[in-house]
């Protein structure tokens, strides 16, 4: 670690939710990006690819927890990442093309990883920094990812094409140096109305290895978020349909006429037995009764 990077932790003071950014010094030695030796990567099979065993370039990232580690690799068309994160962290983030002079600036590309250790679920978002506010999700999500929870560590496997679909996406190219900022939930905290942020910066040098095929990315996992949204919309649609139907029947076509609610002191509320006997008669003359009732009403009119 001593020969690869230095870790800098910066504290930033935010007064009354109007944070100001204090610039610090960055540590500027980082990944030497290597070839990812697998052209068929299943990012939703619940298994972290064995190919990572052959990727020896990595960084210890304390922002991701004591055992936090990040691996990067590429194959000329796609960039690959493996993140080992303390699973108890609700979220971590990687901000691209940022250093002490421009981190958290509006428009910077950021990948955010949300974790839920209880349910063993996760979500990776392709987003854009919005200053000190929550990053804004990009219209296009170019990131494919999966996560495996084991021994309090969440290992996230990520693939993204070099060329991103959104204007704010970093457009990767070979033989280029990229600056990265790492942040996590634990590094954001508030004391006496003052908001502190710890961030970690490293550099990544992206070398173009002699691999030319695009990876096959398979995505067939169960989508919990999609299911939740479908249920939510389904419930709202059902509720709306029920209300519309009820309104049409009881408000317009067949309004219910309640008799006076005032009853005398001798009134006896029907018992379970009374109701039961009443229901037993339904089978006998259900249609007859309805028919007679209709005829009666017509005669009245």
């Amino acid at each position: 670690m001593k020969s690869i990077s230095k870790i800098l932790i910066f504290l930033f003071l935010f007064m009354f939710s109007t944070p100001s950014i204090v610039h610090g010094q960055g540590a500027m030695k980082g990944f030497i990006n290597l070839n990812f030796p697998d052209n068929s990567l299943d990012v939703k099979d619940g298994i972290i690819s064995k190919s990572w065993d052959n990727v020896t370039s990595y960084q210890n990232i304390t922002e991701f927890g004591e055992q936090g580690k990040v691996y990067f690799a590429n194959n000329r068309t796609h960039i690959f990442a493996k993140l080992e994160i303390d699973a108890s962290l609700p979220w971590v983030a990687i901000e691209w093309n940022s250093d002490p002079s421009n981190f958290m600036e509006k428009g910077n590309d950021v990948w955010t990883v949300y974790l839920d250790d209880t349910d063993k679920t996760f979500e990776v978002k392709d987003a854009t920094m919005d200053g000190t506010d929550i990053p804004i999700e990009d219209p296009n999500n170019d990131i494919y990812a999966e996560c495996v929870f084991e021994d309090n560590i969440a290992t996230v496997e990520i693939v993204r094409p070099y060329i991103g679909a959104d204007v704010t996406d970093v457009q990767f190219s070979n033989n280029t140096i990229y600056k990265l900022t790492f942040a996590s939930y634990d590094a954001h905290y508030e004391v006496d109305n003052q908001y502190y942020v710890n961030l970690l910066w490293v550099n990544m040098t992206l070398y173009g290895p002699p691999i030319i095929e695009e990876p096959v990315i398979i995505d067939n996992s169960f989508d919990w978020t999609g299911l939740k949204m479908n249920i939510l919309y389904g419930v709202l649609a059902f509720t709306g349909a029920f209300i519309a139907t009820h309104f049409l029947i009881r408000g317009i076509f067949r309004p219910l006429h309640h008799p006076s609610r005032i009853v005398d002191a001798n009134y006896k509320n029907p018992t379970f037995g009374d109701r039961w006997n009443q229901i037993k008669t339904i089978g006998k003359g259900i249609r007859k009764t309805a028919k007679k009732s209709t005829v009666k009403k017509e005669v009245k009119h």
Partner: protein
Amino acid sequence: MANVVENTGNTQKRKDILVVSRRYTKAHILQHWVNLLLMLIFFTTGIEVLLKKYPIGDYKFTQQVHLISGYIIVFWTLIGYMAIMIKNKKLHEVFPTPKNVLDMILIVGCAVGILDEEKYYPHYDKYIPEKKKYIQKYHPVQTFLGFFNIIFLFFIAITGFVLANNIGLVEDSSLFVIISKAILTPVINMDLNIRFIHFLAFTYFLMTTILHGYFSLLKDNRERFKAMVSGFEVIGKMPQEVEPEV
């Protein structure tokens, strides 16, 4: 009960008395509106967490507001309100009975048009002025709603405490967390998604709250709605014979 006298035109022999009754106590009204406020906070903050968008505050602030509201509703509804109901001997009002099931069968039968409403509809919420007493005060569905509200509130609370513990908002030593985890152990062992259970309970409350709001605004229920503000409702007019004026 307050009685208001109204003339009918034949003032010599008969008057209609407007029967007004106290439907809800002040405690009941307070409980209802505090619940509504908490529901709005839950829905707003819950949706923010679901969509990961925070127009007010940030993730941490939103989670804390959600959690504090959770503590309030647990103490208020699951403990305080239940204690009041037991003290006032009205606990039976929030539990459905077998007769309510039969009532619901009849109501559904009438609604879909297979039963004659005049003969079969189980009219409810009667009032005896002499005794100042309600008979079957609530619609049968309301008794089920009250019961399932408590069940779902319980489940949304314990899953919520486990989720809050998971992200460090509540300590492991919290009694709420210990109890919640103990109850949810079979669920956790089955590797079921606790956040999904929390979400399903949320959809129940979303649906029932919208329907509750819709029904409260119907013409038939307007007096009951007013009673949830003032405590009083107009039940109707009651004819009363009077001595002829000399």
